[in-house]
């Protein structure tokens, strides 16, 4: 199973920093994912620091594998200070440690209970309560659950469940029940909805509930969706040993999933080896990039380095809706879960001619950066193979 995870957040009205903090880390080798959502006391910078510290420390504890999630959470719970003014703890948190087989351990301290959805129904798992040794009114819930294909887990901060509190329609706020209604409606309307879309939907709906659409607290919604992975392959650059062209072209052909080619020479190579003609658009450039071309059995064919450089820039800046070759490649990447790069190591001397008006990056470096950002920022599983 692939774990599609994303978090959407909104700041409290008139604040310049998020008071909730979300971090997650994927471990491709262990097929494991750890994520933490923390809500800091108050709002703005103070809350941001508190939640950030809690979330990152907890993630560090768990991910180093030194301390199991339960003990790690207990240490944090026992050591979080109490605010002198309000006499409540400095931050609350939810943390999950799960793997591709669907085994998940979850701890919650102070945050609203997570929602577990399967086939449109909410499951109520049993949990163990652990009382803090140092603070009387502090306890955490520990869950050990087994997830199935199609399951979703939704974590949120109290900005979601308490939205609209005291307002006209919802005197007690949205509450967990209200959130469940929202979730069920949206999922029945769009059963395959991605985690990022669902998280954004929750946050926007919650904002609409608030008086004058001004959130009274920081809002965060984190969604995990356990589904079949969408595989994608990007073939870029000719192989270092030309005699291997055929072999690699066959691997490209046999790959099951979406396929893209980035590079003019590469496209010619695949076309020649697989005997598939290339068709061009009647345009030459779109938005300062060469136009895309078409090949049967390939989902996207673009130019190489320029398009990849621009794609990397879009991914870094979060510009995701541009209508040019790089924009199409961004969409191709983000619509996939497991991305494999086949990167040819052959260099074209002409690219390093000092007479060229712009500097052309080395393919390997761009792909390395792209793989990193796809992994860390967009939570994709990435595999790079050099050839």
């Amino acid at each position, binding site marked *: 199973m692939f774990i599609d995870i994303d978090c959407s957040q909104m700041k409290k009205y008139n604040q310049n920093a998020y008071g909730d903090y979300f971090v997650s880390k994927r471990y491709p080798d262990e097929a494991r994912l750890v994520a933490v959502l923390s809500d800091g006391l108050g709002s703005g910078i103070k809350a941001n620091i508190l939640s950030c510290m809690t979330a990152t420390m907890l993630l560090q504890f768990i991910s180093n594998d030194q301390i199991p999630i339960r003990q790690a959470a207990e240490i944090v719970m026992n050591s979080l200070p109490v605010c002198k003014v309000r006499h409540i703890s400095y931050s609350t948190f939810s943390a999950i440690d799960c793997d591709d087989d669907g085994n998940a351990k979850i701890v919650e301290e102070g945050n609203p209970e997570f929602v577990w959805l399967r086939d449109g129904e909410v499951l109520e798992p049993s949990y163990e309560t652990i009382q803090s040794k140092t603070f009387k009114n502090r306890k955490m819930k520990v869950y050990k659950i087994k997830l199935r294909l199609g399951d979703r887990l939704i974590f949120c901060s109290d900005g979601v469940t308490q939205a609209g509190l005291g307002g006209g329609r919802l005197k007690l706020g949205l509450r967990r029940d209200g959130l469940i209604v929202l979730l069920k409606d949206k999922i029945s309307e769009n059963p395959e909805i991605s985690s990022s879309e669902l998280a954004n939907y929750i946050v926007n709906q919650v904002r609409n509930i608030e008086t004058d659409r001004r959130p009274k607290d920081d809002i965060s919604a984190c969604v995990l969706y356990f589904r079949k992975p969408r595989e994608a392959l990007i073939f870029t650059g000719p192989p270092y040993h030309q005699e291997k062209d055929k072999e690699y072209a066959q691997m490209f052909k046999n790959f099951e999933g979406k396929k893209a080619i980035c*590079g*003019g*020479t590469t*496209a*010619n190579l695949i076309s020649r080896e697989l005997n598939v003609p*290339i068709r*061009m*658009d*009647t*345009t*030459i*450039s779109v938005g*300062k990039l*060469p*136009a895309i*071309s078409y090949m049967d059995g390939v989902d996207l*064919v673009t*130019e*190489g*380095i*320029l398009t990849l450089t621009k794609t990397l820039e879009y991914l870094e800046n979060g510009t995701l809706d541009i209508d040019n070759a790089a924009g199409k490649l961004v969409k191709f990447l983000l619509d996939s879960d497991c991305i494999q790069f086949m990167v040819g190591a052959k260099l*074209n*001397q*002409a*690219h390093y*001619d000092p*007479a*060229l*008006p*712009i500097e*052309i990056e080395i393919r390997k470096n761009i792909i390395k950066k792209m793989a990193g950002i796809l992994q860390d920022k967009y939570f994709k599983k990435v595999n790079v193979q050099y050839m």
Partner: protein
Amino acid sequence: MDKKISVKVCLGTTCFVMGSANLQELIDTVPAKYGDKVEVSGVPCLGLCSIDWEFSKAPYVKVDDEVIKEATVEKVLKAIDERLK
């Protein structure tokens, strides 16, 4: 003349940064001038920049089998005219 003249503009990385992006107007001007006697299209790469002896003469355009180095709109139109003579 039965056979169409084919004009292929290289859209490989080198050619594109060396100016093939500026040949976009061929797509409009050529059909306007020559009707359906000439066909213009981009190609992913003509593979010419990587050959040493032609080094740094991009952008390249192919008019039928003739290679035009450091191509400009004028050079391409001239080459088409010669062929139509």
